């Protein structure tokens, strides 16, 4: 709660100290040369009041769930967010799942094949995933898989001729499945796969490295030898005994990696014309849309806080020695 308050203060101050006048930025050349228009604009958005007053008005509205009005879309920021969040959520969750599945699997394999060829190859791949700039990867992926090979459709969440599925969750893939529209679902997945992979590259590398080192550490333990001495098959030893004990550091890094995804969406969504929070925040930032920026920052902060709360709870679930304080 206090964190959210802090974030809102930070967001407010940071956006206001930026040089540049939102009125000028949003009114256009002709209107901004008209003093009356500028004055009306400022009054409308409360920009004529001193900054602390602006802040407390904002806080008061926030308590009613009102995030203010976007200076660009001229809609409530809440409605804007509600429209864009599902798109980003779908992209972010898909990429997290991809990164987690691939990263953990590769990390376990690398640890078990320590210092052999497989391990070397996996380590190079994970390093590559972590050190490739995301925008470059996105452009190359688009060029190769869309332009050259034409394996995947290009921009957006759906082909232009495909209608979105009935709105339930806002995640097209789930909504399409729920409505039984298999063709829409497949189209969604085709659109989703490339940006999700690009977004997952960094985290996959990160998870691989963390899993590898965590598993290597656990393999040294006596209880792994105990498990083998029981005559359990190696698969059970690795997945039940080793991976369980190795999971706390992996869970930690997954929590932190949500931050990477959030920043990653700004670039990836813009390159892939994905109508989500990333694109929205980019547009708001370049258009000096202060209310929208603060709204996005609050949203991201809340997601981050929630994710880390879940991580803390997971610790206690994984390791019985950790008490829930």
């Amino acid at each position, binding site marked *: 709660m206090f964190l959210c308050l802090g974030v809102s203060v930070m967001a407010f101050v940071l956006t206001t100290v930026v040089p540049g006048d939102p009125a000028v930025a949003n009114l256009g050349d002709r209107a901004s040369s008209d003093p009356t228009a500028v004055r009306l604009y400022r009054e409308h958005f409360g920009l004529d009041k001193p900054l602390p007053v602006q802040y407390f008005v904002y806080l008061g509205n926030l308590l009613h769930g009102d995030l203010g009005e976007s200076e660009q879309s001229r809609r409530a920021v809440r409605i804007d967010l509600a429209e864009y969040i599902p798109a980003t959520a779908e992209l972010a969750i898909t990429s997290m799942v991809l990164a987690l599945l691939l990263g953990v699997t590769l990390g376990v394999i690398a640890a078990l094949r320590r210092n052999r060829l497989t391990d070397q190859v996996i380590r190079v791949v994970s390093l590559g995933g972590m050190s490739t700039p995301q925008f470059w990867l996105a452009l190359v992926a688009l060029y190769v898989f869309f332009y050259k090979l034409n394996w995947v459709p290009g921009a957006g969440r759906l082909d232009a001729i495909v209608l979105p599925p009935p709105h339930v969750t806002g995640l097209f893939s789930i909504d399409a499945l729920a409505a039984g529209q298999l063709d829409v679902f497949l189209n969604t997945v085709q659109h989703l796969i490339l940006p999700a992979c690009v977004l997952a590259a960094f985290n996959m590398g990160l998870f691989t490295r963390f899993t590898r080192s965590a598993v290597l550490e656990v393999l040294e333990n*006596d209880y792994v*030898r105990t498990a083998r001495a029981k*005559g359990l098959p190696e698969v059970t030893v690795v997945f*039940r005994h080793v991976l369980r*004990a190795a999971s706390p550091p992996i869970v930690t890094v997954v929590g932190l990696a949500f931050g990477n995804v959030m920043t990653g969406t700004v670039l990836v969504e813009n390159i892939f014309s994905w109508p989500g929070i990333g694109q929205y925040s980019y547009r708001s930032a370049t258009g000096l849309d202060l209310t929208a920026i603060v709204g996005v920052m609050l949203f991201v902060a809340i997601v981050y806080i929630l994710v880390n709360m879940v991580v803390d709870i997971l610790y206690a679930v994984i*390791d019985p*020695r950790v008490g829930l304080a």
Partner: protein
Amino acid sequence: MTPLLSVRDLHVWLDTARGPLSIVDGVSFDVGEGQVFGLAGESGSGKTITALALLGLLPAGARTGGVAIMAGRDLLAMRTSERRRTRGREIAMVFQDPTSSLHPMLTIERQLTEHLRYQLGLSGKEAHLRAVALLTEVRMPDPEAAMRGYPHQFSGGMRQRIQIAIGLACEPRLLIADEPTTALDVTVQAGILRLLRRLCKEKNLAVILITHDLGVLSALADSITVMYAGRVAESGPTSQVMGHARHPYTRGLIDALPHPEAPDRVLIPIAGDPASPESRPSGCAFHPRCRYSRPSCQIAIPPLIPIDDGREMACPVDPFMASVAR
């Protein structure tokens, strides 16, 4: 009577940065059904590696030589899958430190039933009942509650009892206990040792008891093999080895034991440090620490020579010959 396990000329080399390193160098012994066989020696003498070799749990890159025949099959020459079926069902092992040898994040029930279900194909309910019976057998108070607990909720002695229950779950014929009491309080030690003794008699279970503590062995073991630097120094029935030790090393270990009935007796430590596998002395590895060593001890590796009634000893000097004659 053919012994349950017969180890002949066991060699183990571990893989190190400077090439293979000989850890166990020609060890032979027999373990009979229902017997407690004691494997004694200081740390680094190759006791644990010997046990791990029998289970096929040596670190990666290790090589073995010799044979270990159990029920007509050579444990060292088995395929991986065959060896896995042996573990738990034929040979089980209880490790030194019960704290690090139990998985900290899995319930006792999980750790006690998973191999029952996998190895013996029991259903969840059958395995649960059997696990409760096992915990009762190792004298665990309130077995049902213990099943739901995690290792950190138990004391060291209780954890060791759990480990023994895990080892016994699939009714092995041989239980290897590697320093089972070293990590425990003296008061708890006696309880664990009594438990091992009882299980051995009730189930006709063979036990290999690995320890550096000859005092433990004298109370428990039917026969003893004393190892030094990967080789057998002396072996034979417990009463013989403990009562009339012939090898200077065995004698040294016995002299270093505190004696409850004679508290005034001066303990005589063995001078020097145990030989490490990296720098094993030439000839008889014990010669730098031996009070009776002769120049020839530095050159020739002494062979194991049979002495009276089934005893073997590897010391040509035999300084305690007289004490036997007496």
